[in-house]
């Protein structure tokens, strides 16, 4: 049986990808960002998942304004890193566990989550930056160590799905994964955030106190976290901070009780507060 053993929350700031792709991770600006990922990379090596279920948002790459699915599951055999306007990132093609992805799609739809199914899709920094954060440098001619099932969540056009909807989707994702017969170690990623506003006159907003509270809730009280309103995200964490709804999918797929094995928080990376957490299921040993 496939099982979810752990969850990873992390920002997907494009500039983190650029810093890695241009070998600037050791300069004074980036060093404190990447130092916090050393432990994550060691953990990832040890954890060695077969499959990553990766929740992220597309930034008008696969979906422009002509088509805006609230939830879209990547079911293609593979996903090319996209040219987002400055050339594709020099990272490997992302390979799917296609059979498992179609099982998950079927299970989720019968569980009343009406997904869009993507049989062709390019992926942007929202997906590749978290992989780079957790695996370090992997060249375009190498392979990512795990297969990746992408789930895109619309957070560009308001309103994104509610935190509660995302949390319940996470629970359904867990039911889907745990009803798949192959014996697989699955880690789920929830990405985006933390506080940031990229646009207009309030750009640059950061709310570290709020972010810390959110990270605490991720570990200790995910139900309370899932009830945070859209208005609170917009006002307290900036217009783009609302990406954090995606973390609830990750959290919903884990046990009520989890062990926090790592946390990292740093301001700034470009316009953004970088937040990162690793949560292990307490039940993982009994599986």
């Amino acid at each position, binding site marked *: 049986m496939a099982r979810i053993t752990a969850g990873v929350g992390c920002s997907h700031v494009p500039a983190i990808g650029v810093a890695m792709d241009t070998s600037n991770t050791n300069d004074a600006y980036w060093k404190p960002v990447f130092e916090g990922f050393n432990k994550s990379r060691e953990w990832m090596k040890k954890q060695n998942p077969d499959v990553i279920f990766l929740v992220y948002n597309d930034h008008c790459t696969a979906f422009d304004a002509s088509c805006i699915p609230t939830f879209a599951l990547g079911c293609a055999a593979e996903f090319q890193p996209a040219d987002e306007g400055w050339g594709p990132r020099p990272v490997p093609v992302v390979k799917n566990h296609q059979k498992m992805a179609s099982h998950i799609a079927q299970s989720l739809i019968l569980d009343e989550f009406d997904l869009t199914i993507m049989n062709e899709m390019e992926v942007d920094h929202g997906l590749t930056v978290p992989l780079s954060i957790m695996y370090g440098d992997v060249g375009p001619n190498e392979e990512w160590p795990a297969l990746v099932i992408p789930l895109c969540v619309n957070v560009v056009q308001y309103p994104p799905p509610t935190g509660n909807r995302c949390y319940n989707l996470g629970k359904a994702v867990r039911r889907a994964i745990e009803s798949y017969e192959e014996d697989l170690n699955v880690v789920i990623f929830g990405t985006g955030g933390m506080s940031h506003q990229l646009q207009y006159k309030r750009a*640059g907003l950061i709310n570290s106190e709020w972010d810390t509270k959110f990270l605490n809730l991720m570990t200790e009280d995910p139900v309370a976290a899932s009830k945070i309103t859209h208005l609170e995200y917009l006002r307290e964490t900036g217009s783009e901070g609302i990406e954090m709804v995606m973390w609830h999918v990750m959290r919903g797929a884990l046990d009520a009780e989890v062990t926090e094995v790592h946390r990292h928080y740093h301001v700034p990376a470009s316009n953004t507060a970088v937040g990162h957490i690793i949560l292990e299921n307490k039940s993982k040993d009994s599986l």
Partner: protein
Amino acid sequence: MANKEYDDIPGTFVFDAERSREGYHLNQFCISLRLQKNRDAFNANEDAYLNSYPMTPAQRGAVIKRDWNLLLELGGNIYYTAKLAANDGINFQNLAGRMTGMGVDAYRDMMLRGGRPIEGNRTNSEWEKD
């Protein structure tokens, strides 16, 4: 336009369906610049390229002038307008520096000091006091 609960957040546009409708052709133009062949065509002849996107004269003017805030006021969304900025060699942080009116260096310094604080930046009334 009906009042919305998020209209009270200062210096912020929430890209909802109303804005999406207003900015549709502008945003579709911007996103076309994701691809190199389109960037080449646009940079070779901006006017001719813009003719294939039926945006309003005001939106078109804001594109030509690279008036980043006006683009947002007219229905543009940051993830879209950032493609026009990227075409011009302007990254997200420098674009933010321009939109805030602080300038690129002062904005970068503010971010290094921990960003724009939430205190005093929650509601329109807090901005009107200044």
